[in-house]
């Protein structure tokens, strides 16, 4: 690798050619404050916070975009630099609603932290503030443009990472606003509600729709049997909200916390993840054997489903008809479960804790009412659960370890790896292998399907069936590439796993936010650290194959009879519908009426 030597604050630093001055400074242990910059995602030099002096350059330069060159002389800590950074942040603050105390990002806000770091005491420049209407139109995501500082990280996440691009700049100058084109509301455009914009927002300008009050109300209602399910990826990430290092699994403390919050039953989405494998694995075999539509594509990720409906309706028949584990759980929570404990299903209130914002939308889809009620009553994100635990005064870190309730809390390692990209594929292969070959799978670790590579492929020999070709994509930008390849006939697969979010559910839009400075400081990609926690959990489980889950076996015996059977079909499977890509245009389209 070609190396370049430059001088920063009088010290010689060697960095790879092509690095930015910011990266070089970081390598030298010199801290430069940033705001719009986001590692590997947003390098636009817009916010003018990471300014430095560069010899022979006019004015101050944004270090995040200034390329290193041999002999470059940089000063990061001069009077001029400090004063300029301060003045810029003061300007940003002069157009910011100072509602920190009641803002959902209070103490977790990068602008707040920056103001503190730069020692800003008062704001010399006061004046008019921009006032924009709030956008609460969507069931999952709220935009508060007044708080937006126009760093455009959300624009990069939506356009470049997810390849959707519903967020962009409207108007210009002081009136600039990040919003869907023509200032439409989120619900009126092809937003898939993945929430990646939330995860990158440095301030409180985008957030999930807070529904904790609904859960508090339900918990306060003595008539209600309040059951909760927790998604696989929540346990690997929740600890971050309580100051634990990234990648610390907190499964059993989470169960203890939920019980202390007052849930009647603490169940696990992993249980229905195992169930999903049985249904979907059989669906795959059925399609392969009987000439069904291939490749079969997973349907666990509601952001992916909505994306497919808007952007790739031609692939709807490829989608597995299996509901997501959340919705399978919901359907059973108001049928199988009340029947089993002999309560009126109308009294069951079903809460799910998800790493996901799109799940809030999924549970409200009209077809998700197969129990006769709305199957899942309310979805909380990991962040919202943390908020409830904090509000309840629970000392999370010092909680004792507790176990999930039976039977819907019993699961295998195959269920837990649903939380990382490639996990559904690996879980399916563990079961399909044994079903097809009739042999016991000794090494259950399909490492070829793991990792953070955007698109991964593998071939698995399944005698007597033959070789099965699989692919994995995470992040919708990667999904788009994969689907285009298939459309162009450049690739052929039997089975594909697609997750809307980068890294899969551990990187979900409802997960704790990893700030830009933390992303720079962590030794590894935070998604890698989180997925390690997931695979460690899997390794620690006694059972690691879904079809060996005894509670699932019982469920079939007592209730569902068999995979893809009539009851399964009614409760566990669903259908999809094409949705327009440009909703504004669709209104004028006769065929839509």
């Amino acid at each position, binding site marked *: 690798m070609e190396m370049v030597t430059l001088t920063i604050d009088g010290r010689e630093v060697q960095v790879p050619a092509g690095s930015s001055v910011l990266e070089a400074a970081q390598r030298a242990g010199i801290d430069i404050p940033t705001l719009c910059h986001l590692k590997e995602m947003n390098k*636009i*030099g*817009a*916010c*003018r916070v990471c*300014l430095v002096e560069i010899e022979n350059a*006019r*004015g*101050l*330069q*944004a270090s995040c*975009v*200034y*390329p290193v060159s041999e002999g470059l002389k940089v000063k990061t800590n001069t009077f*001029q630099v400090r*004063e*300029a950074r301060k*003045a*810029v942040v003061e*300007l*940003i603050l*002069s*157009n910011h609603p100072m509602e920190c105390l009641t803002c959902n990002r209070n103490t977790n806000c990068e602008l707040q932290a920056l103001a503190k770091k730069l020692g800003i005491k008062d704001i*010399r*420049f*006061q*004046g*008019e503030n921009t006032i924009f209407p709030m956008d609460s139109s969507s069931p999952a995501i709220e935009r508060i443009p007044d708080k937006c*500082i*126009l760093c455009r990280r959300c624009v990069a996440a939506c356009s470049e990472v997810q390849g959707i691009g519903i967020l*962009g*700049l409207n*108007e*210009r*100058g*002081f*009136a*600039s606003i990040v919003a869907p084109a023509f200032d439409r509301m989120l619900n009126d455009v092809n937003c898939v509600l993945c929430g990646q914009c939330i995860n990158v927002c440095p301030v409180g300008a985008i957030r999930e729709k807070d529904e904790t009050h609904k859960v508090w109300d339900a918990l306060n209602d003595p008539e209600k049997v309040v059951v909760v399910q927790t998604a696989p990826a929540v346990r690997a990430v929740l600890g971050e909200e309580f100051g634990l290092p990234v990648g610390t699994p907190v499964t059993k403390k989470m169960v203890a916390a939920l019980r202390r919050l007052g849930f009647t039953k603490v169940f696990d989405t992993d249980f229905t993840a195992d169930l999903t494998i049985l249904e979907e694995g059989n669906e795959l075999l059925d399609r392969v054997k009987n000439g069904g539509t291939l490749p079969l594509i997973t349907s666990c990720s509601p952001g992916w489903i909505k994306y497919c409906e808007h952007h790739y309706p031609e692939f709807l028949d490829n989608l597995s008809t299996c509901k997501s584990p959340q919705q399978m759980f919901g359907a059973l929570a108001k049928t199988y479960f009340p029947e089993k404990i002999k309560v009126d299903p109308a009294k069951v209130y079903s809460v799910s804790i998800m790493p996901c914002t799109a799940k809030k939308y999924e549970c409200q889809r009209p077809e998700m009412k197969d129990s006769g009620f709305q199957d899942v009553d309310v979805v909380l994100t990991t962040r919202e659960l943390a908020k409830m635990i904090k509000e309840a005064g629970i000392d999370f870190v010092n909680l004792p370890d507790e176990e999930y309730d039976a039977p819907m809390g019993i699961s295998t390692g195959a269920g837990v790896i649903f939380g990382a990209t490639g996990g559904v594929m690996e879980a399916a292969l563990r079961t399909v292998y044994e079903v097809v070959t009739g042999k016991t799978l000794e090494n259950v670790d399909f490492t070829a399907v793991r990792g953070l590579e955007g698109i991964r492929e593998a071939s698995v020999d399944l005698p007597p069936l033959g070789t099965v070709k699989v692919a994995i994509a995470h992040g919708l930008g990667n999904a788009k590439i994969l689907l285009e390849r298939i459309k162009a006939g450049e690739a052929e697969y039997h089975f594909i796993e697609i997750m809307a979010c980068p890294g899969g559910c551990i990187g979900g839009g409802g997960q704790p936010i990893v700030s830009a400075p933390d992303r720079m400081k962590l030794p590894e990609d935070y998604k890698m650290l989180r997925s390690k926690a997931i695979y460690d959990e899997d390794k620690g489980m006694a059972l690691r194959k879904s079809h060996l889950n005894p509670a699932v076996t019982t469920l079939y015996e007592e209730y569902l009879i068999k995979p893809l059977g009539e009851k399964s079909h009614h409760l566990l499977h669903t259908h999809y519908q094409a949705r327009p890509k440009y909703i504004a245009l669709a209104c004028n389209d006769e065929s839509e009426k």
Partner: protein
Amino acid sequence: MRSVDELKALKEKVLKEMSGRVDNNMPTITVHMGTCGIANGAKDVLTAVVDEIKNKSLTNVTVAQTGCPGICYEEPVVTVAIPGQMPFFYGKVSPEKAKKIVTEHFVNNKSVQDWLLNSDGNSTKEISAINYFKPQKKVALTSCGAINPEIIEEYIAVDGYFALAKALTEMTPLQVIDTMSKSGLRGRGGGGFPTGRKWEFAYNSKGDQKYVVCNADEGDPGAFMDRSVLEGTPHAVIEAMAIAGYAIGANQGYVYVRAEYPVAVANLKTAINQAREMGFLGKNIFGKGFDFDLDIRLGAGAFVCGEETALLASIEGKRGEPRPRPPFPAVSGLWGKPTIINNVETLANVPHIIRNGAEWFSAMGTEKSKGTKVFALAGKINNTGLIEVPMGTTLRTIIYDIGGGIPNGKKFKAAQTGGPSGGCIPAEFLDMEIDYDNLIAMGSMMGSGGMIVMDEDTCMVDIARFFLEFTQEESCGKCPPCRIGTKRMLEILTKITEGKGTHEDIENLEILAKTIKNTALCGLGQTSPNPVLSTLKYFRHEYEAHIYDKKCPSGVCKKLVNYSIIAEKCIGCGLCARNCPVDAISGEVKKPYTIDAEKCIKCGVCIEKCKFGAVVKK
């Protein structure tokens, strides 16, 4: 066009065939049809000329059109060329006047001395000898207003495309670049970057595809140099772009021009088509294996799109916003390919430099600013117009000799150069030689060449506010210093002009100005505080008068001005009271009237109406 001989033969043929102005073999009457002329009624004048020629059944007269000759204060302008005589320039021509001019010249064989611009008592003199033109030196504007921009042959007749021929047949790309470097030509669009060096960077950049872009997104208030050049001599720009393409190894160019310049766009389109037909654009130009073509891209009117990286984003179909540099466009420009971006006026100089040599060009101007500069002279000046002077000409020459001084005998106060990115030059610097470096030293800049003259009635705080309002409205919003900083500066300036200023306002203006200058992302942001900084530097007392005395010394800021009636001068006629739109004036006939300051909206009607000078504003 396959060879230089072919071009030479064409020129000879054209010269032979062409009408009066060049060959003097047939009387010609020319109507100058730049946007300025058209706006002043040149189309009606043209119709009148044609009608009159028809009515009088005249056959031995050619009617021609051309671009703006630069004499805006006399528009519409008509010239009459008669073989063997000095051309006659007529100003402020109405359709009636036009008819008379036709009759007098072509029926009675006389000129109309009273209306002549180049009258020398009873005869005519060279137009270049009149005061307005005497200190001027035309290079970029040479053929502007002299040839019909819609006829390529007329451009060829004045040596058009000979520079391209020379470059392609006698010079290597490096020799072309070397000539540009030696000429000392610097970018006329604002920054003043040496053109030769820019071309050299792009030449040295590796790339399978390179581009030449002409920046014709002229947006400074009061500036119209580029428009006139494109309207009046579009082929000069096309020729220069082809030369630039040859020099850096580009085979495609784009002219980015504002959609608000319809005449320029139309003339340019015509010119491009003609150049293609004649083979000055297209494949294998002059048989030298060099391919080059041009397309036009229309800007939607955003000032910021004049900034080169924003302009490139706009051509690419993206939101017109600047991006940080490096990388510079010469390395990574349009669609990531090496690209040079030159302003219209810069390009208009290029053919002359190639034809006449670097030394010829560098002999004009000052040590570090070579050649000439075009200025759009506007504001409180008698002779508004488009002028071209050698670098180093003093402001006094421009204002008083060319511009004819300040109207109504008022005193000169300052001149704003560089538009909203520039600053004002006060009267004490009237004898400063204008070039890039002197202007920067003064806290202003050359900019694209707008020059707005201000007289004693101009409030400098209000002027600063006007320019800030412009930059603030035109900010793209990408970086906070420009997006919020200019807004805060504007708010403070507005406050001061409304008499609500406090003592910390000047300090805050200075902090904000310094911050924006040092931290904004692009040149437009960085220079936006200049109007405030320069007025603070030279007219600080005006700011202080607004803040501490709550007075606008020039009587411009309405909220700080009070109207009153001097009792001794008022004869009590009541005219002011009858005309006051808000009944703020009352009194008894033949006794002094009074103004109710509470009701007064400071519209100034009373001052206008009073015949005795009894109403004053203070």
